């Protein structure tokens, strides 16, 4: 039976990890939201999105963990699956003895330290620390910065072989800080998992620690029957969480990720996945400590959610000036900075490739969170993809109608830089690109030239004008809006219908 449980878990975990990865791949994330919708079942996104539609998902995840322990970590978490793959891959090059796990005692102070430094800022409206530690978000960064770039490289190789059918994917913007962070994180996880299995999950990961506290009290837990156990240590050798202690016959439920390895390998059937809630009532001695901790955790989680709810009602003071334009749906820079974990789902999905990880535009506590760049392109008028792929609710879904009225910035026209003024020649590139006609052309001089004039209330800050402005010093610059506003709808310009029945020449 455990063999089938394990097989099911492996199949499900690989399938989920692949689907999550596909949400970041160009060939699979265009024109559909199949893969990006799966991202919502990740723990931190569900927690952050609790007030924006993910409450049911979070409740489901918590009940799931309360019933079955940290199955989440060995099934749903893509970073968990990745670590198992890494361990297995390294095992191919090791002899049997080297591939054995040993029991290690937990480094509890470190676990709780990481949990505290991630959770406390969250309560006060900053998701910065959790964005650096959250397993899903970091898997996202790895997918976007490393896997997706590799995909692009392969895509472009294929475009050389089949130039008529496969197009060349122009290289996207390279943000060194983001790439280096993803690479460093990947290397750290590779080293940790190659040597010690789920060491990251059981020492660093704040999600692992939280779920571990709940699992101590879960309904089903692996237990060793001391009668049947002959202490062959086979289970220990196969426990990637290094949490089976045969000296006292205990399995550390806070670190066990319920991978079912121990139950599968035990030749004597001494390890079993047991329903424990009934037993507690019978014996009522040992597990009380676990119950207290679990109740405490649930209480902390509850007060955390309550604190978030209060802080939502009292939004943090917006900075006077910011340097970065947040993607549509962000509502405000403050909202972005308290909900975004920089997973880069929006960066990977933007069809125009204009969303990039920030490098300080929002301040240090907004590092790697998405910011718009109009260097290579601009925000498409008929597009709301980024707002729809965000699993956290850091970008809230916008209908196309709403998106077209969402003012993420406002253009500023610097007349003295404009080609029409400096060169006295026609241009109008900005007017050409303006989707709302916040920019219009009015007569200039008496040589039939026209110059742009701007209506800032209509402008939505899409950056078409800034991108296309050919002047050496841009004459059109979009100034970020710290709080996104509702723009005035474009003017409706009815024109009288002239009926023409001649050619005019």
């Amino acid at each position, binding site marked *: 039976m455990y063999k089938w449980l394990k097989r099911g878990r492996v199949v499900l975990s690989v399938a989920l990890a692949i689907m999550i990865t596909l949400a970041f791949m160009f060939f699979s994330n265009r024109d559909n939201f199949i893969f990006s919708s799966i991202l919502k079942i990740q723990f931190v996104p569900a927690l952050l999105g609790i007030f924006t539609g993910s409450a049911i998902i979070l409740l489901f995840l918590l009940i799931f963990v309360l019933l079955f322990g940290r199955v989440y970590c060995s099934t749903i978490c893509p970073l968990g699956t990745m670590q198992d793959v890494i361990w297995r891959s390294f095992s191919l090059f090791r002899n049997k003895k080297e591939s054995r796990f040993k029991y290690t005692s937990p480094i509890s102070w470190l676990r709780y330290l990481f949990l505290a430094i991630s959770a406390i800022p969250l309560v006060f409206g900053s998701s910065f620390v959790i964005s650096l530690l959250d397993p899903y978000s970091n898997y996202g960064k790895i997918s976007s910065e490393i896997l997706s770039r590799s995909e692009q490289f392969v895509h472009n190789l294929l475009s050389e072989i089949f130039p*008529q059918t496969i197009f060349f994917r122009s290289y996207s913007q390279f943000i060194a800080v983001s790439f280096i962070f993803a690479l460093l994180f990947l290397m750290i996880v590779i080293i940790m998992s190659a040597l010690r299995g789920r060491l990251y999950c059981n020492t660093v990961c704040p999600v692992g620690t939280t779920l571990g506290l709940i699992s101590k009290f879960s309904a089903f837990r692996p237990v060793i029957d001391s009668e049947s156990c002959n202490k062959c240590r086979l289970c220990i050798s196969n426990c990637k969480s290094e949490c089976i202690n045969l000296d006292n016959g205990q399995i550390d439920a806070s670190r066990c990720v319920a991978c079912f390895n121990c139950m599968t390998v035990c030749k004597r059937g001494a390890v079993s996945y047991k329903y424990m809630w009934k037993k507690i009532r019978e014996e009522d001695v040992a597990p009380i400590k676990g119950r207290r901790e679990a109740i405490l955790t649930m209480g902390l989680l509850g007060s955390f959610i309550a604190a978030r709810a209060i802080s939502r009602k009292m939004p943090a003071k917006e900075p006077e000036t910011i340097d970065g334009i947040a993607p549509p749906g962000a509502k405000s820079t403050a909202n972005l900075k308290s909900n975004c974990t920089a997973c880069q789902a929006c960066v990977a999905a933007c069809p125009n490739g204009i969303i990039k990880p920030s490098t300080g535009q929002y301040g240090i506590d907004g590092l790697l969170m998405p910011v718009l760049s109009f260097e290579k392109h601009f925000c*498409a008028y008929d597009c709301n993809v980024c707002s729809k792929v965000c699993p956290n609710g850091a970008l809230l879904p916008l209908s196309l109608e709403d998106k077209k009225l969402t003012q993420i910035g406002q253009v500023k026209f610097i007349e003295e830089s404009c080609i029409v003024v400096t060169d006295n020649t026609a241009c109008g590139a900005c007017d*050409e690109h303006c989707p709302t006609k916040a920019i219009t052309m009015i007569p200039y001089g008496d040589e039939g030239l026209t110059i742009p004039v701007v209506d800032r209330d209509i402008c939505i800050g899409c950056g078409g004008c800034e991108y296309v402005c050919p002047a050496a010093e841009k004459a059109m610059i979009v100034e970020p809006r710290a709080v996104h506003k509702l723009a005035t709808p474009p003017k409706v310009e009815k*024109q009288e219908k*002239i009926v*023409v029945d001649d050619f*005019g020449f």
Partner: protein
Amino acid sequence: MERRNFLKSAILGGLAGAVQLKPSSLFASESKEVQGENDLVAVMGGEPLNMYKRGISAMGGMSRFIKKGNKVVVKPNIGWDKKPEFAANTNPELVAAIVKDCLAAGASEVVVFDHTCDEWQACYRNSGIEAAAKAAGAKIAFAHDEKYYREISLPMGVRLKSAKIHESIIDCDVWINVPVLKNHGGAKMTMAMKNFMGIVWDRRYWHANDLQQCIADCSTYSKMPVLNIIDAYRVMTQNGPKGKTTEDVVLAKALFLSTDIVAVDTAALRFFNQFKEMRIEDVSHIQRAERAKVGTTNLDAIKVERIKI
């Protein structure tokens, strides 16, 4: 033996050369005399397809412009992520009709592309042109990256001395220019000459270096389209070239065909003036191109046929 072989091949080669040269030169001299071959044809009052059919036959049929086995490029305006009813792009039905006609005239392949302003895949898709052209048998070329462009020189250019032109234009035998008639905030009007901005890579240079002159300069390119077809079925008369709503569009139901790019722009502009006033002096690329001897604005000096349906 060797001498005999040499003589044999020399004679055969000479014959082949003569045979190859003769028909094409004969054809060229003949074609000017054939009836119904106008310099400019204006059609109005019909649907895209029947206006095109009447127009092209008044121009002497597609076989006047395309020889059997030719690689042909049809270059519409696909600049914007807009549906056909917004008239920001060339009418897909017209593009499809031209593609079919080229293939019927013996073209070995027909390629359709544009260097778009909005994101290219959205433009290709939402303009309806990719689907229509493919269904008609054309190939769609990619034009969104600099790697698809090659540098050519424009010795006659005043401000634009060289440009990176799309490889399919450089590599084809003939190309047909199929713009849509629109008002334009910067260039005043966008018609046949302005449509060349979609065959070059660096448009920003044009805007920064006297747009009107650069438009005229690019029309001095040695490889000009054999035919210009201006789509004026739906005409954007305000807020061009992108437009806001269908309020910007009038149903004008017209089509202009010409071998002379200056003449066709002149004709389309005069037609446009019936809806909105626009002086030819203000669309100065037209007269600048005329001064560079690209074509004529004097429609009385060329053979024009007007067809009302």
